């Protein structure tokens, strides 16, 4: 095993991990603020990927897909939150969770009906094709773009949560919703916004991951599983946890593929079991 291979794996792991941040942070924030674990999150991701595919097919413009698909899915998320999840606040959170299971089924089968069960791939612009050479390794250009793009989005998100007024509201909401409400902030609006942003980020990640791999109607549960593992490993309701968990998961998967061919996926569960045994609440608890 030489250094360049090691470096390629590490870079690939970080790339996957950074895309995962976009999915996991939405899932984690929704849970942290609203107490809703959204099992339809993978479905939203998949919707983003398929909308992206169709938009690229129609317009031929990759960037249009990157902008419009997340906006459409964020709107769908907004509708989902307002009409299905909101009526259930205050009830046992299991009901909301089971509701999202139902929504996930609806999304999965809608995708199957509309786009069919075949594998599809998003056509990339020419400048994303080919490889980049640096430090003695070949790396696909698009993956490098994914790495920088996702990292940028994640950093913007981080700064928003840490520094902006909305971020303060969101963090406060994680600790004590009632007090936030008492300060005259409409928490239902906060919920709507957090949920929509989570959905939009998931869709963005869907477009990116869909372009990196392929689209199929099974990808929703695959992505949801990864995001859930991230959240278990990193700790629920924590943005930092989502970042740490995502990177750890991405790197584990990349190196797992290298060392135990065919068992790449399992290394991730092994990681989860280890974390569960020693830190059942995840590596990082709430911020």
């Amino acid at each position, binding site marked *: 095993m030489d250094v360049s291979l090691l470096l390629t794996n590490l870079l690939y792991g970080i790339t996957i991990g950074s895309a995962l941040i976009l999915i996991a942070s939405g899932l984690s924030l929704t849970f942290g603020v609203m107490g809703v674990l959204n099992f339809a999150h993978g479905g939203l991701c998949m919707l983003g990927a398929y909308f992206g595919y169709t938009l690229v097919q129609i317009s031929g413009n990759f960037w249009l897909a990157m902008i419009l698909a997340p906006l459409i899915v964020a709107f769908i998320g907004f509708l989902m939150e307002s009409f299905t999840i909101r009526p259930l606040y205050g009830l046992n959170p299991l009901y909301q969770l089971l509701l999202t299971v139902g929504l996930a089924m609806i999304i999965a089968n*809608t995708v199957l009906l509309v786009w069919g069960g075949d594998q599809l791939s998003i056509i990339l612009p020419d400048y994303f094709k080919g490889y980049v050479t640096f430090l003695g390794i070949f790396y696909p250009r698009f993956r490098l773009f994914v790495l920088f793009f996702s990292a940028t989005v994640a950093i913007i998100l981080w700064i928003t949560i840490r520094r902006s007024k909305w971020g303060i509201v969101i963090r406060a909401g994680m600790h004590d919703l009632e007090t936030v409400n008492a300060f005259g902030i409409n928490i239902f609006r906060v919920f709507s916004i957090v949920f929509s942003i989570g959905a939009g980020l998931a869709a963005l990640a869907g477009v990116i991951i869909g372009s990196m791999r392929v689209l199929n109607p099974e990808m929703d549960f695959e992505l949801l599983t990864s995001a859930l593992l991230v959240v278990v490993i990193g700790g629920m309701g924590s943005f930092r946890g989502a970042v740490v968990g995502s990177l750890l998961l991405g790197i584990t998967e990349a190196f797992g593929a290298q060392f135990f061919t065919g068992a790449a996926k399992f290394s991730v569960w092994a990681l989860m079991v280890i974390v569960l045994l020693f830190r059942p609440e995840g590596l990082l608890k709430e911020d």
Partner: protein
Amino acid sequence: MKRIIPALILLALLVAFPWGAEIFYSGFYVSLLTRIFIFAIIVVGFDLLAGYTGMVSYGHALFFGTGAYLTGMLLKNWTPWFWPPIVITLLASGVVAYIIGYLSIRTRHIYFVFLTFAFAQFFFVTANSWNFIGASNGLSAIPKPFILPGLNLSGENSFYYFSLASLFIGYLLARRITCSAFGKIMIGVRENEERTLFLGYNTKKVILRVFIISGIYGGFAGALMAAFNSFVSPSLYHPAVSGEIIIMALLGGMGTLVGPIIGSGLVIILGDILSSWLAESWMMILGAAFALVILFSPGGMMALGRKINNLIKRG
């Protein structure tokens, strides 16, 4: 006594049902009912865990699939008899449930739901990629097992009776558990775990035990499914199966044992009717129906179950 008579009538009707096949209705309905019985077994097991102990698992398909694969492999490669694979499957399901339960019951509520989901996904991915058990093709041509010398479960009717008897025994055992002192502790855990703990009961042990029992029910149902279909595919592990199990229990009414059996019937019959029109996408309708029930009568699902129970009681 009032409840026993209608129950006996229902049982007698079910026992007599195959005699009317091919005369009054097609033999297809016998196999449809068989499928309902098999699913009802796993849903009854699920109800012990979710309905009585309050621990909703979104990964019950993992027991279903594990039981099916294990029995399928044993029937294919080892013995034509049904009993040894069943015993091994029951033991193995218990062990699997112990390991997964040990790891997942450190958490509660929502965390428990997604941990069980994550573990089930592990099995789904494994089954899809492990060549030894046929990878994504699954196992096919599983021979019909013998249960007595000269009696193999090849006919529709023999399988019907075998599953009916299994469900009946499974239901009685579950009832025995829920009516026992242990059953009361289970309900105590559901209603207020802390208080039950303070009363001196080791609630973790209780939950783990119920999880194991529930897993054994699931493994057994899987074993039946493998022999019934003569075919096992990784889709048995799919989260949609776990979802279906939850829906069956919820639609019928959790924590009632009878409800889940009715729920299994409702969902399978509904699925059968809808899938003849809509092919694969009937799950969409099921998802929508599920969402609507939760939205418009979130507390009322139990009530729905109770209403159905009342209807049955009235006979």
